[in-house]
Protein backbone atom coordinates (compact mmCIF):
# COMPACT_ATOMS: atom_id res chain seq x y z
CA UNK A 1 0.00 0.00 0.00
CA UNK A 2 1.40 3.36 -1.07
CA UNK A 3 -0.24 5.19 1.82
CA UNK A 4 1.17 4.85 5.33
CA UNK A 5 -1.90 3.99 7.42
CA UNK A 6 -0.30 5.23 10.63
CA UNK A 7 -0.22 8.82 9.35
CA UNK A 8 -3.89 9.20 8.47
CA UNK A 9 -5.68 9.92 11.74
CA UNK A 10 -4.45 11.33 15.03
CA UNK A 11 -7.40 11.61 17.35
CA UNK A 12 -5.25 12.87 20.21
CA UNK A 13 -4.16 15.97 18.33
CA UNK A 14 -7.33 16.11 16.23
CA UNK A 15 -5.84 15.89 12.76
CA UNK A 16 -6.91 13.87 9.73
CA UNK A 17 -5.29 13.35 6.36
CA UNK A 18 -7.36 14.39 3.32
CA UNK A 19 -6.29 11.10 1.75
CA UNK A 20 -8.94 9.26 3.75
CA UNK A 21 -11.53 10.88 1.48
CA UNK A 22 -9.98 10.29 -1.92
CA UNK A 23 -7.41 7.51 -2.08
CA UNK A 24 -8.41 4.51 -4.25
CA UNK A 25 -6.36 1.98 -2.32
CA UNK A 26 -7.74 3.13 1.00
CA UNK A 27 -11.24 2.81 -0.39
CA UNK A 28 -10.72 -0.81 -1.43
CA UNK A 29 -9.31 -1.61 2.00
CA UNK A 30 -12.24 0.21 3.57
CA UNK A 31 -14.75 -1.97 1.72
CA UNK A 32 -13.02 -5.04 3.13
CA UNK A 33 -12.15 -3.91 6.63
CA UNK A 34 -14.83 -1.37 7.53
CA UNK A 35 -17.87 -2.33 5.47
CA UNK A 36 -16.99 -6.01 5.54
CA UNK A 37 -16.92 -6.07 9.33
CA UNK A 38 -19.35 -3.38 10.57
CA UNK A 39 -23.02 -3.69 11.38
CA UNK A 40 -24.85 -2.06 8.49
CA UNK A 41 -28.50 -1.02 8.32
CA UNK A 42 -30.48 -3.26 5.97
CA UNK A 43 -34.13 -2.32 6.37
CA UNK A 44 -36.83 -1.39 8.83
CA UNK A 45 -39.57 -3.88 9.66
CA UNK A 46 -42.22 -1.60 8.15
CA UNK A 47 -40.51 -1.68 4.74
CA UNK A 48 -41.02 -5.42 4.30
CA UNK A 49 -44.11 -6.31 6.35
CA UNK A 50 -45.41 -9.35 4.42
CA UNK A 51 -43.89 -12.71 3.61
CA UNK A 52 -42.03 -12.43 0.32
CA UNK A 53 -41.54 -8.67 0.61
CA UNK A 54 -38.01 -7.83 -0.40
CA UNK A 55 -35.78 -4.79 -0.41
CA UNK A 56 -32.65 -4.52 -2.56
CA UNK A 57 -29.84 -2.73 -0.80
CA UNK A 58 -26.08 -2.67 -0.50
CA UNK A 59 -23.54 -3.50 2.15
CA UNK A 60 -20.55 -1.51 1.05
CA UNK A 61 -20.66 -2.10 -2.71
CA UNK A 62 -22.12 -5.58 -2.38
CA UNK A 63 -25.75 -5.86 -3.47
CA UNK A 64 -27.87 -7.57 -0.83
CA UNK A 65 -31.45 -8.81 -0.83
CA UNK A 66 -33.36 -8.43 2.41
CA UNK A 67 -36.40 -10.70 2.43
CA UNK A 68 -39.28 -11.30 4.84
CA UNK A 69 -39.65 -15.03 5.38
CA UNK A 70 -42.87 -17.00 5.79
CA UNK A 71 -42.17 -17.42 9.51
CA UNK A 72 -41.80 -13.65 9.94
CA UNK A 73 -38.03 -13.68 10.24
CA UNK A 74 -35.76 -11.78 7.87
CA UNK A 75 -33.10 -13.27 5.62
CA UNK A 76 -30.33 -11.28 3.98
CA UNK A 77 -28.05 -12.62 1.28
CA UNK A 78 -25.82 -11.49 -1.53
CA UNK A 79 -27.91 -10.51 -4.54
CA UNK A 80 -25.79 -12.65 -6.80
CA UNK A 81 -26.36 -15.96 -8.52
CA UNK A 82 -23.73 -18.54 -7.53
CA UNK A 83 -23.45 -19.84 -11.10
CA UNK A 84 -21.91 -16.91 -13.04
CA UNK A 85 -22.37 -14.11 -10.55
CA UNK A 86 -25.36 -12.45 -12.20
CA UNK A 87 -27.47 -10.04 -10.13
CA UNK A 88 -30.43 -12.13 -9.02
CA UNK A 89 -33.00 -9.40 -8.60
CA UNK A 90 -32.99 -6.07 -10.42
CA UNK A 91 -36.08 -4.52 -8.84
CA UNK A 92 -35.62 -2.02 -5.99
CA UNK A 93 -38.28 -3.71 -3.91
CA UNK A 94 -41.46 -5.70 -4.27
CA UNK A 95 -43.05 -8.97 -3.30
CA UNK A 96 -41.70 -12.32 -4.41
CA UNK A 97 -44.19 -15.16 -4.04
CA UNK A 98 -42.09 -18.02 -5.29
CA UNK A 99 -38.44 -17.84 -6.18
CA UNK A 100 -35.76 -15.40 -7.17
CA UNK A 101 -34.84 -16.78 -10.55
CA UNK A 102 -31.64 -15.77 -12.26
CA UNK A 103 -32.42 -14.38 -15.70
CA UNK A 104 -29.14 -15.67 -17.14
CA UNK A 105 -29.42 -19.50 -16.89
CA UNK A 106 -32.43 -19.93 -14.65
CA UNK A 107 -31.03 -20.94 -11.30
CA UNK A 108 -33.84 -20.36 -8.83
CA UNK A 109 -33.48 -19.48 -5.16
CA UNK A 110 -36.05 -19.54 -2.39
CA UNK A 111 -36.99 -16.58 -0.20
CA UNK A 112 -34.14 -17.47 2.11
CA UNK A 113 -31.55 -17.64 -0.66
CA UNK A 114 -31.42 -21.44 -0.78
CA UNK A 115 -30.89 -22.90 -4.24
CA UNK A 116 -34.10 -24.74 -5.06
CA UNK A 117 -33.81 -25.59 -8.73
CA UNK A 118 -31.41 -25.51 -11.65
CA UNK A 119 -32.37 -25.79 -15.31
CA UNK A 120 -31.35 -29.05 -16.94
CA UNK A 121 -30.47 -30.42 -13.56
CA UNK A 122 -30.95 -34.03 -14.68
CA UNK A 123 -29.65 -34.03 -18.24
CA UNK A 124 -26.89 -31.40 -18.33
CA UNK A 125 -25.87 -31.48 -14.66
CA UNK A 126 -26.45 -35.26 -14.50
CA UNK A 127 -28.19 -34.83 -11.16
CA UNK A 128 -24.79 -34.29 -9.59
CA UNK A 129 -25.06 -30.68 -8.43
CA UNK A 130 -25.04 -30.35 -4.63
CA UNK A 131 -27.69 -27.65 -4.40
CA UNK A 132 -27.34 -27.33 -0.64
CA UNK A 133 -23.76 -26.13 -1.14
CA UNK A 134 -24.66 -23.51 -3.74
CA UNK A 135 -27.21 -21.29 -2.05
CA UNK A 136 -26.75 -17.52 -2.08
CA UNK A 137 -23.98 -16.19 0.14
CA UNK A 138 -25.71 -15.38 3.42
CA UNK A 139 -25.09 -12.26 5.45
CA UNK A 140 -23.47 -13.99 8.38
CA UNK A 141 -25.18 -12.11 11.17
CA UNK A 142 -28.61 -10.45 10.99
CA UNK A 143 -30.20 -8.81 14.01
CA UNK A 144 -33.47 -6.99 14.49
CA UNK A 145 -33.10 -4.19 17.03
CA UNK A 146 -36.54 -2.77 17.88
CA UNK A 147 -37.65 -2.99 14.25
CA UNK A 148 -34.33 -1.91 12.73
CA UNK A 149 -32.66 -4.75 10.84
CA UNK A 150 -28.87 -4.75 10.68
CA UNK A 151 -26.43 -7.15 9.06
CA UNK A 152 -22.77 -8.00 9.41
CA UNK A 153 -20.63 -10.17 7.12
CA UNK A 154 -18.13 -11.03 9.83
CA UNK A 155 -18.95 -14.05 12.03
CA UNK A 156 -16.44 -12.84 14.62
CA UNK A 157 -18.04 -9.40 15.00
CA UNK A 158 -19.64 -8.66 18.36
CA UNK A 159 -23.45 -8.77 18.60
CA UNK A 160 -25.26 -5.65 17.42
CA UNK A 161 -26.00 -4.48 20.96
CA UNK A 162 -22.35 -4.95 21.96
CA UNK A 163 -21.37 -3.07 18.82
CA UNK A 164 -23.69 -0.23 19.85
CA UNK A 165 -22.22 -0.32 23.36
CA UNK A 166 -22.97 2.87 25.29
CA UNK A 167 -24.62 4.33 22.20
CA UNK A 168 -27.66 2.10 22.71
CA UNK A 169 -28.90 4.51 25.40
CA UNK A 170 -28.82 7.26 22.78
CA UNK A 171 -30.14 5.19 19.85
CA UNK A 172 -33.26 4.49 21.91
CA UNK A 173 -34.18 8.18 21.68
CA UNK A 174 -35.04 7.32 18.09
CA UNK A 175 -35.71 3.59 18.20
CA UNK A 176 -37.69 3.25 21.42
CA UNK A 177 -39.53 6.51 22.03
CA UNK A 178 -43.00 5.32 21.04
CA UNK A 179 -45.09 2.38 22.29
CA UNK A 180 -45.80 1.20 18.77
CA UNK A 181 -42.54 2.26 17.22
CA UNK A 182 -41.93 3.89 13.89
CA UNK A 183 -42.97 3.20 10.32
CA UNK A 184 -41.45 4.48 7.12
CA UNK A 185 -43.49 6.74 4.89
CA UNK A 186 -43.96 4.81 1.64
CA UNK A 187 -41.11 5.12 -0.84
CA UNK A 188 -37.72 6.68 -0.40
CA UNK A 189 -35.22 9.12 -1.85
CA UNK A 190 -32.10 7.95 -3.62
CA UNK A 191 -29.60 10.32 -5.12
CA UNK A 192 -25.98 10.49 -6.14
CA UNK A 193 -23.38 12.72 -4.55
CA UNK A 194 -19.88 12.88 -5.98
CA UNK A 195 -18.15 12.83 -2.63
CA UNK A 196 -16.76 10.44 -0.07
CA UNK A 197 -19.28 8.90 2.35
CA UNK A 198 -17.31 10.05 5.38
CA UNK A 199 -18.23 13.71 4.90
CA UNK A 200 -21.87 12.84 5.45
CA UNK A 201 -21.27 10.27 8.20
CA UNK A 202 -19.03 12.69 10.06
CA UNK A 203 -21.56 15.49 9.84
CA UNK A 204 -24.32 13.37 11.34
CA UNK A 205 -21.91 12.09 13.99
CA UNK A 206 -20.54 15.37 15.21
CA UNK A 207 -21.57 18.50 13.43
CA UNK A 208 -24.30 20.67 14.91
CA UNK A 209 -22.19 23.72 14.31
CA UNK A 210 -22.30 23.74 10.51
CA UNK A 211 -26.05 24.34 10.60
CA UNK A 212 -25.84 28.01 11.52
CA UNK A 213 -23.54 28.67 8.56
CA UNK A 214 -24.48 26.09 5.94
CA UNK A 215 -28.20 26.34 6.61
CA UNK A 216 -28.69 29.97 7.60
CA UNK A 217 -30.79 30.55 4.50
CA UNK A 218 -33.13 27.68 5.31
CA UNK A 219 -33.65 28.88 8.88
CA UNK A 220 -34.59 32.32 7.59
CA UNK A 221 -36.86 30.94 4.87
CA UNK A 222 -38.66 28.47 7.12
CA UNK A 223 -39.08 30.65 10.18
CA UNK A 224 -42.68 30.41 11.34
CA UNK A 225 -44.50 33.73 10.99
CA UNK A 226 -45.00 34.07 14.74
CA UNK A 227 -41.42 33.14 15.66
CA UNK A 228 -39.49 35.62 17.80
CA UNK A 229 -36.44 35.56 15.55
CA UNK A 230 -33.21 33.66 15.06
CA UNK A 231 -31.90 34.93 18.41
CA UNK A 232 -34.43 32.60 20.10
CA UNK A 233 -32.67 29.57 18.62
CA UNK A 234 -30.95 27.39 21.20
CA UNK A 235 -27.21 27.10 21.58
CA UNK A 236 -27.12 24.95 24.71
CA UNK A 237 -26.56 21.35 23.84
CA UNK A 238 -24.54 18.22 24.33
CA UNK A 239 -22.48 15.98 22.10
CA UNK A 240 -21.81 12.34 22.85
CA UNK A 241 -18.93 10.33 21.44
CA UNK A 242 -18.78 6.56 21.58
CA UNK A 243 -15.39 4.87 21.52
CA UNK A 244 -17.05 2.52 19.03
CA UNK A 245 -17.24 5.35 16.51
CA UNK A 246 -20.89 6.32 16.92
CA UNK A 247 -21.85 9.84 17.84
CA UNK A 248 -24.66 12.29 18.32
CA UNK A 249 -25.37 15.86 19.32
CA UNK A 250 -28.51 17.61 20.43
CA UNK A 251 -29.98 20.78 21.85
CA UNK A 252 -31.45 20.33 25.30
CA UNK A 253 -34.00 23.11 25.16
CA UNK A 254 -35.47 25.75 22.93
CA UNK A 255 -37.46 25.70 19.73
CA UNK A 256 -35.98 23.92 16.74
CA UNK A 257 -38.58 21.38 15.70
CA UNK A 258 -40.97 24.29 15.15
CA UNK A 259 -38.85 25.21 12.11
CA UNK A 260 -38.26 21.68 10.90
CA UNK A 261 -40.39 19.65 10.53
CA UNK A 262 -42.87 22.31 11.70
CA UNK A 263 -45.29 23.16 14.50
CA UNK A 264 -47.59 20.14 14.15
CA UNK A 265 -44.92 17.44 14.54
CA UNK A 266 -43.15 19.61 17.12
CA UNK A 267 -46.26 19.63 19.28
CA UNK A 268 -46.74 15.89 18.86
CA UNK A 269 -43.11 15.18 19.80
CA UNK A 270 -42.74 17.67 22.64
CA UNK A 271 -46.23 17.69 24.17
CA UNK A 272 -48.70 15.05 22.99
CA UNK A 273 -46.37 12.08 23.42
CA UNK A 274 -44.15 13.42 26.18
CA UNK A 275 -45.77 11.25 28.84
CA UNK A 276 -45.51 8.12 26.67
CA UNK A 277 -41.89 8.86 25.84
CA UNK A 278 -41.01 9.64 29.47
CA UNK A 279 -42.50 6.33 30.56
CA UNK A 280 -40.44 4.48 27.98
CA UNK A 281 -37.07 6.21 28.01
CA UNK A 282 -37.17 8.58 30.99
CA UNK A 283 -37.37 12.34 31.24
CA UNK A 284 -33.84 13.18 30.07
CA UNK A 285 -34.20 11.43 26.75
CA UNK A 286 -37.87 12.29 26.29
CA UNK A 287 -37.32 16.04 26.74
CA UNK A 288 -33.67 16.62 26.03
CA UNK A 289 -33.39 15.99 22.34
CA UNK A 290 -34.71 19.09 20.59
CA UNK A 291 -33.32 18.52 17.13
CA UNK A 292 -30.52 16.01 17.15
CA UNK A 293 -28.04 14.47 14.75
CA UNK A 294 -27.02 10.82 15.04
CA UNK A 295 -24.79 8.36 13.25
CA UNK A 296 -24.27 4.69 13.97
CA UNK A 297 -20.82 3.88 12.60
CA UNK A 298 -20.23 3.80 9.75
CA UNK A 299 -23.18 4.93 7.61
CA UNK A 300 -26.57 4.85 9.34
CA UNK A 301 -27.74 8.36 10.17
CA UNK A 302 -30.93 9.92 11.47
CA UNK A 303 -32.28 13.09 13.02
CA UNK A 304 -34.66 12.29 15.92
CA UNK A 305 -37.58 14.70 15.99
CA UNK A 306 -37.05 15.65 12.37
CA UNK A 307 -37.31 11.95 11.50
CA UNK A 308 -35.21 11.73 8.39
CA UNK A 309 -33.20 8.52 8.31
CA UNK A 310 -30.57 7.55 5.79
CA UNK A 311 -27.75 5.30 4.69
CA UNK A 312 -24.70 6.72 2.94
CA UNK A 313 -23.95 4.03 0.35
CA UNK A 314 -20.29 4.12 -0.73
CA UNK A 315 -19.78 4.01 -4.50
CA UNK A 316 -16.08 4.76 -4.75
CA UNK A 317 -13.67 7.06 -2.94
CA UNK A 318 -15.31 10.10 -4.49
CA UNK A 319 -18.92 8.96 -4.85
CA UNK A 320 -21.83 7.86 -2.74
CA UNK A 321 -25.58 7.51 -2.86
CA UNK A 322 -27.89 8.87 -0.25
CA UNK A 323 -30.76 6.52 0.55
CA UNK A 324 -33.22 8.38 2.74
CA UNK A 325 -36.51 7.58 4.44
CA UNK A 326 -39.03 9.47 6.54
CA UNK A 327 -39.76 7.66 9.81
CA UNK A 328 -43.03 8.59 11.47
CA UNK A 329 -44.51 7.31 14.74
CA UNK A 330 -46.83 4.45 13.81
CA UNK A 331 -49.53 5.68 16.19
CA UNK A 332 -49.49 9.33 15.12
CA UNK A 333 -52.76 10.62 13.66
CA UNK A 334 -52.84 11.02 9.85
CA UNK A 335 -52.53 14.80 9.94
CA UNK A 336 -49.38 14.56 12.06
CA UNK A 337 -47.81 11.98 9.76
CA UNK A 338 -48.71 14.16 6.80
CA UNK A 339 -47.07 17.21 8.38
CA UNK A 340 -43.93 15.18 9.05
CA UNK A 341 -43.92 13.85 5.49
CA UNK A 342 -44.22 17.30 3.96
CA UNK A 343 -41.78 18.80 6.43
CA UNK A 344 -39.06 16.32 5.54
CA UNK A 345 -39.66 16.42 1.77
CA UNK A 346 -39.26 20.19 1.90
CA UNK A 347 -36.14 20.22 4.07
CA UNK A 348 -34.22 16.91 4.05
CA UNK A 349 -34.39 15.45 0.55
CA UNK A 350 -32.49 16.22 -2.65
CA UNK A 351 -34.74 19.24 -3.13
CA UNK A 352 -34.88 20.01 0.57
CA UNK A 353 -34.09 23.50 1.73
CA UNK A 354 -31.46 22.21 4.17
CA UNK A 355 -30.09 19.26 2.31
CA UNK A 356 -29.17 21.10 -0.89
CA UNK A 357 -26.42 23.02 0.81
CA UNK A 358 -24.81 19.97 2.43
CA UNK A 359 -24.17 18.39 -0.94
CA UNK A 360 -22.70 21.64 -2.24
CA UNK A 361 -20.16 21.67 0.58
CA UNK A 362 -19.17 18.01 0.36
CA UNK A 363 -18.81 18.00 -3.43
CA UNK A 364 -16.63 21.05 -3.49
CA UNK A 365 -14.30 19.50 -0.89
CA UNK A 366 -14.04 16.42 -3.09
CA UNK A 367 -13.18 18.49 -6.15
CA UNK A 368 -10.54 20.44 -4.26
CA UNK A 369 -8.94 17.16 -3.20
CA UNK A 370 -7.84 16.56 -6.80
CA UNK A 371 -5.08 19.00 -5.98
CA UNK A 372 -1.77 17.62 -4.83
CA UNK A 373 -1.23 20.29 -2.19
CA UNK A 374 -4.83 19.99 -1.07
CA UNK A 375 -4.24 16.32 -0.24
CA UNK A 376 -0.95 16.92 1.48
CA UNK A 377 -1.74 19.01 4.55
CA UNK A 378 -3.73 17.68 7.49
CA UNK A 379 -7.23 18.90 8.19
CA UNK A 380 -8.27 20.24 11.57
CA UNK A 381 -10.75 18.37 13.77
CA UNK A 382 -9.66 19.93 17.06
CA UNK A 383 -12.82 21.76 18.13
CA UNK A 384 -13.33 21.22 21.85
CA UNK A 385 -10.21 19.08 22.20
CA UNK A 386 -9.38 18.61 25.88
CA UNK A 387 -12.84 19.71 27.01
CA UNK A 388 -14.40 16.25 26.96
CA UNK A 389 -16.08 15.14 30.16
CA UNK A 390 -17.41 11.92 31.63
CA UNK A 391 -19.46 13.40 34.47
CA UNK A 392 -22.49 14.99 32.85
CA UNK A 393 -25.22 14.42 35.43
CA UNK A 394 -27.82 13.66 32.77
CA UNK A 395 -26.08 12.30 29.70
CA UNK A 396 -23.81 9.28 30.20
CA UNK A 397 -20.45 8.60 28.59
CA UNK A 398 -17.95 10.85 26.90
CA UNK A 399 -19.61 14.17 26.23
CA UNK A 400 -18.79 17.72 25.26
CA UNK A 401 -20.80 20.78 24.34
CA UNK A 402 -22.80 20.24 21.17
CA UNK A 403 -20.48 22.52 19.23
CA UNK A 404 -17.41 20.31 19.31
CA UNK A 405 -15.63 17.65 17.27
CA UNK A 406 -15.21 15.07 19.99
CA UNK A 407 -17.47 12.66 18.13
CA UNK A 408 -15.62 13.25 14.84
CA UNK A 409 -12.38 12.29 16.55
CA UNK A 410 -14.13 9.22 17.91
CA UNK A 411 -15.44 8.25 14.49
CA UNK A 412 -12.11 8.62 12.73
CA UNK A 413 -10.30 6.78 15.50
CA UNK A 414 -12.69 3.86 15.08
CA UNK A 415 -12.24 4.02 11.33
CA UNK A 416 -8.45 3.80 11.58
CA UNK A 417 -8.77 1.04 14.19
CA UNK A 418 -10.78 -1.00 11.74
CA UNK A 419 -8.43 -0.19 8.87
CA UNK A 420 -5.35 -1.30 10.81
CA UNK A 421 -6.55 -4.17 13.04
CA UNK A 422 -6.62 -7.69 11.67
CA UNK A 423 -9.24 -9.02 14.06
CA UNK A 424 -12.33 -7.89 15.90
CA UNK A 425 -10.66 -8.77 19.19
CA UNK A 426 -7.92 -6.24 18.41
CA UNK A 427 -10.49 -3.61 17.48
CA UNK A 428 -12.35 -4.22 20.72
CA UNK A 429 -9.15 -4.16 22.77
CA UNK A 430 -8.38 -0.70 21.44
CA UNK A 431 -11.91 0.43 22.22
CA UNK A 432 -11.72 -0.92 25.76
CA UNK A 433 -8.36 0.75 26.31
CA UNK A 434 -9.85 4.12 25.42
CA UNK A 435 -12.96 3.47 27.49
CA UNK A 436 -10.73 2.74 30.52
CA UNK A 437 -9.23 6.23 30.29
CA UNK A 438 -12.34 7.95 31.56
Amino acid at each position, binding site marked *: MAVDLTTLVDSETGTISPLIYCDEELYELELERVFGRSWLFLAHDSMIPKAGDFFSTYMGEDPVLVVRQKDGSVAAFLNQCRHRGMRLCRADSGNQRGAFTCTYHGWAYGLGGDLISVTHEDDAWHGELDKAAWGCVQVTQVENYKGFIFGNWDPTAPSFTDYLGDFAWYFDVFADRFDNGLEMVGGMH*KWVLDCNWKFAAEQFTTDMQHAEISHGSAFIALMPDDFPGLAAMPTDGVQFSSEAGHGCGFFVDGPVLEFVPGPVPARYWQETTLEEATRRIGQARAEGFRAAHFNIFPTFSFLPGLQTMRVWQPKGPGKMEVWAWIAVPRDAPPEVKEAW*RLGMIRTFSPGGQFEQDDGENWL*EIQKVLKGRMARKFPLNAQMGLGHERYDDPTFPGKTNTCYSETAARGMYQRWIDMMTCDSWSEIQARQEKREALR
Partner: protein
Amino acid sequence: MTMELTSLARVSVELQHEIEQFLYHEAALLAEREYRDWLDLFAPDIHYWMPTRYNRLRRELHREFSEPDETAFFDEDYDSLSRRITRLETGMAWAEDPPSRTRHLFTNVRVIPTENVVEFEVHCNFLLYRSRLEHDVEFFVGARTDVLRRTDRGVGWEIARRKVVLDQSTLNAKNLSMFF
Protein backbone atom coordinates in the same frame (compact mmCIF):
# COMPACT_ATOMS: atom_id res chain seq x y z
CA MET B 1 -60.00 29.87 -40.98
CA THR B 2 -61.15 27.74 -38.07
CA MET B 3 -59.88 24.20 -37.99
CA GLU B 4 -62.29 21.46 -37.07
CA LEU B 5 -61.54 19.97 -33.63
CA THR B 6 -60.80 16.26 -33.54
CA SER B 7 -60.18 13.63 -30.86
CA LEU B 8 -56.45 14.36 -31.10
CA ALA B 9 -56.61 18.11 -31.63
CA ARG B 10 -59.21 19.10 -29.07
CA VAL B 11 -58.52 22.81 -28.89
CA SER B 12 -58.11 25.52 -31.50
CA VAL B 13 -54.79 26.37 -33.05
CA GLU B 14 -55.09 29.79 -31.40
CA LEU B 15 -55.54 28.31 -27.94
CA GLN B 16 -52.73 25.82 -28.50
CA HIS B 17 -50.50 28.67 -29.56
CA GLU B 18 -51.44 30.82 -26.60
CA ILE B 19 -50.75 28.05 -24.13
CA GLU B 20 -47.42 27.21 -25.70
CA GLN B 21 -46.46 30.85 -25.43
CA PHE B 22 -47.38 30.74 -21.75
CA LEU B 23 -45.05 27.75 -21.24
CA TYR B 24 -42.23 29.57 -23.01
CA HIS B 25 -42.87 32.69 -20.95
CA GLU B 26 -42.57 30.68 -17.78
CA ALA B 27 -39.36 29.05 -19.00
CA ALA B 28 -37.88 32.45 -19.80
CA LEU B 29 -38.62 33.71 -16.30
CA LEU B 30 -36.79 30.71 -14.82
CA ALA B 31 -33.82 31.10 -17.15
CA GLU B 32 -33.64 34.79 -16.20
CA ARG B 33 -33.99 33.87 -12.50
CA GLU B 34 -37.06 36.09 -12.10
CA TYR B 35 -38.42 33.86 -9.36
CA ARG B 36 -41.01 36.21 -7.86
CA ASP B 37 -42.48 36.85 -11.30
CA TRP B 38 -42.40 33.10 -11.87
CA LEU B 39 -44.24 32.45 -8.59
CA ASP B 40 -46.86 34.97 -9.66
CA LEU B 41 -47.84 32.55 -12.45
CA PHE B 42 -49.15 30.09 -9.87
CA ALA B 43 -52.66 29.99 -8.43
CA PRO B 44 -52.92 30.36 -4.66
CA ASP B 45 -54.22 26.76 -4.48
CA ILE B 46 -51.30 25.34 -6.50
CA HIS B 47 -50.21 21.78 -5.86
CA TYR B 48 -46.72 21.25 -7.27
CA TRP B 49 -45.73 17.60 -7.13
CA MET B 50 -42.89 15.40 -8.34
CA PRO B 51 -43.28 11.80 -7.17
CA THR B 52 -40.33 9.47 -6.70
CA ARG B 53 -39.90 6.56 -9.07
CA TYR B 54 -38.63 3.01 -8.68
CA ASN B 55 -37.38 -0.01 -10.56
CA ARG B 56 -40.23 -2.48 -10.29
CA LEU B 57 -40.90 -5.79 -11.89
CA ARG B 58 -43.42 -5.49 -14.72
CA ARG B 59 -46.12 -7.28 -12.72
CA GLU B 60 -45.71 -4.60 -10.00
CA LEU B 61 -45.54 -1.60 -12.32
CA HIS B 62 -48.57 -0.09 -10.58
CA ARG B 63 -46.08 0.70 -7.84
CA GLU B 64 -43.56 2.40 -10.12
CA PHE B 65 -44.36 5.87 -8.78
CA SER B 66 -44.83 6.97 -5.21
CA GLU B 67 -48.43 7.63 -4.18
CA PRO B 68 -49.65 11.10 -3.20
CA ASP B 69 -49.25 10.32 0.52
CA GLU B 70 -45.75 8.92 0.10
CA THR B 71 -42.26 10.23 -0.47
CA ALA B 72 -41.82 12.78 -3.25
CA PHE B 73 -39.08 14.95 -4.68
CA PHE B 74 -41.41 17.92 -4.49
CA ASP B 75 -44.77 18.25 -2.75
CA GLU B 76 -45.35 21.97 -2.59
CA ASP B 77 -48.04 24.54 -2.04
CA TYR B 78 -47.89 28.27 -2.71
CA ASP B 79 -46.36 29.05 0.67
CA SER B 80 -43.63 26.43 0.43
CA LEU B 81 -42.71 27.54 -3.11
CA SER B 82 -42.53 31.09 -1.85
CA ARG B 83 -40.25 30.05 1.00
CA ARG B 84 -37.93 28.34 -1.49
CA ILE B 85 -37.61 31.68 -3.24
CA THR B 86 -37.10 33.45 0.09
CA ARG B 87 -34.17 31.11 0.65
CA LEU B 88 -32.61 32.06 -2.68
CA GLU B 89 -33.04 35.72 -1.79
CA THR B 90 -31.10 35.49 1.48
CA GLY B 91 -27.73 35.50 -0.27
CA MET B 92 -26.79 32.44 1.80
CA ALA B 93 -28.36 29.66 -0.26
CA TRP B 94 -25.01 28.13 -1.10
CA ALA B 95 -26.34 25.46 -3.48
CA GLU B 96 -27.48 28.36 -5.68
CA ASP B 97 -24.84 30.95 -4.90
CA PRO B 98 -23.20 31.43 -7.35
CA PRO B 99 -26.43 30.50 -9.14
CA SER B 100 -26.90 27.66 -11.61
CA ARG B 101 -27.53 28.28 -15.30
CA THR B 102 -30.72 26.53 -16.33
CA ARG B 103 -32.64 26.18 -19.59
CA HIS B 104 -36.05 24.56 -19.98
CA LEU B 105 -36.95 23.08 -23.35
CA PHE B 106 -40.52 21.92 -24.00
CA THR B 107 -41.92 19.68 -26.72
CA ASN B 108 -44.94 17.42 -27.32
CA VAL B 109 -47.39 19.98 -25.99
CA ARG B 110 -50.93 18.59 -25.85
CA VAL B 111 -53.84 20.63 -24.58
CA ILE B 112 -56.91 18.82 -23.32
CA PRO B 113 -60.11 20.54 -22.21
CA THR B 114 -61.49 19.67 -18.78
CA GLU B 115 -65.02 19.74 -17.38
CA ASN B 116 -64.22 23.20 -16.10
CA VAL B 117 -64.35 25.52 -19.15
CA VAL B 118 -61.62 27.80 -17.80
CA GLU B 119 -59.18 24.99 -17.04
CA PHE B 120 -57.08 22.97 -19.46
CA GLU B 121 -54.84 20.02 -18.89
CA VAL B 122 -51.52 20.68 -20.56
CA HIS B 123 -49.08 17.85 -21.16
CA CYS B 124 -45.55 18.42 -22.32
CA ASN B 125 -42.16 16.78 -22.36
CA PHE B 126 -39.25 18.71 -21.00
CA LEU B 127 -35.51 18.77 -21.05
CA LEU B 128 -34.01 20.79 -18.23
CA TYR B 129 -30.33 21.56 -18.63
CA ARG B 130 -28.34 22.80 -15.67
CA SER B 131 -24.80 24.07 -15.79
CA ARG B 132 -23.22 24.94 -12.50
CA LEU B 133 -19.94 26.34 -11.23
CA GLU B 134 -16.89 25.33 -13.27
CA HIS B 135 -17.88 22.05 -14.89
CA ASP B 136 -21.12 20.63 -13.46
CA VAL B 137 -23.59 19.63 -16.17
CA GLU B 138 -26.88 17.85 -15.65
CA PHE B 139 -29.81 16.93 -17.86
CA PHE B 140 -33.26 16.17 -16.53
CA VAL B 141 -35.76 14.66 -18.93
CA GLY B 142 -39.37 13.99 -18.14
CA ALA B 143 -43.00 14.90 -18.57
CA ARG B 144 -45.09 17.59 -17.01
CA THR B 145 -48.83 17.68 -16.59
CA ASP B 146 -50.18 21.09 -15.68
CA VAL B 147 -53.67 22.36 -15.12
CA LEU B 148 -53.76 25.88 -16.53
CA ARG B 149 -56.59 28.18 -15.53
CA ARG B 150 -57.80 31.31 -17.26
CA THR B 151 -57.61 34.30 -14.98
CA ASP B 152 -58.19 38.05 -15.09
CA ARG B 153 -54.82 38.91 -13.66
CA GLY B 154 -51.27 38.95 -14.94
CA VAL B 155 -50.71 37.26 -18.27
CA GLY B 156 -54.21 35.78 -18.29
CA TRP B 157 -53.32 32.26 -17.17
CA GLU B 158 -52.28 30.68 -13.91
CA ILE B 159 -50.92 27.26 -13.04
CA ALA B 160 -53.36 25.45 -10.79
CA ARG B 161 -51.70 22.01 -10.70
CA ARG B 162 -48.34 20.67 -11.72
CA LYS B 163 -47.19 17.08 -11.76
CA VAL B 164 -43.62 16.45 -12.86
CA VAL B 165 -42.49 12.96 -13.79
CA LEU B 166 -38.76 12.49 -14.02
CA ASP B 167 -37.32 9.76 -16.23
CA GLN B 168 -34.83 8.62 -13.62
CA SER B 169 -35.06 6.32 -10.64
CA THR B 170 -32.01 7.11 -8.52
CA LEU B 171 -31.68 10.84 -8.97
CA ASN B 172 -28.49 11.41 -10.91
CA ALA B 173 -27.89 14.87 -9.48
CA LYS B 174 -26.50 16.35 -6.31
CA ASN B 175 -29.69 18.24 -5.58
CA LEU B 176 -32.89 19.67 -6.96
CA SER B 177 -32.17 23.29 -6.26
CA MET B 178 -33.85 24.37 -9.48
CA PHE B 179 -37.53 24.53 -10.43
CA PHE B 180 -39.29 22.31 -12.94
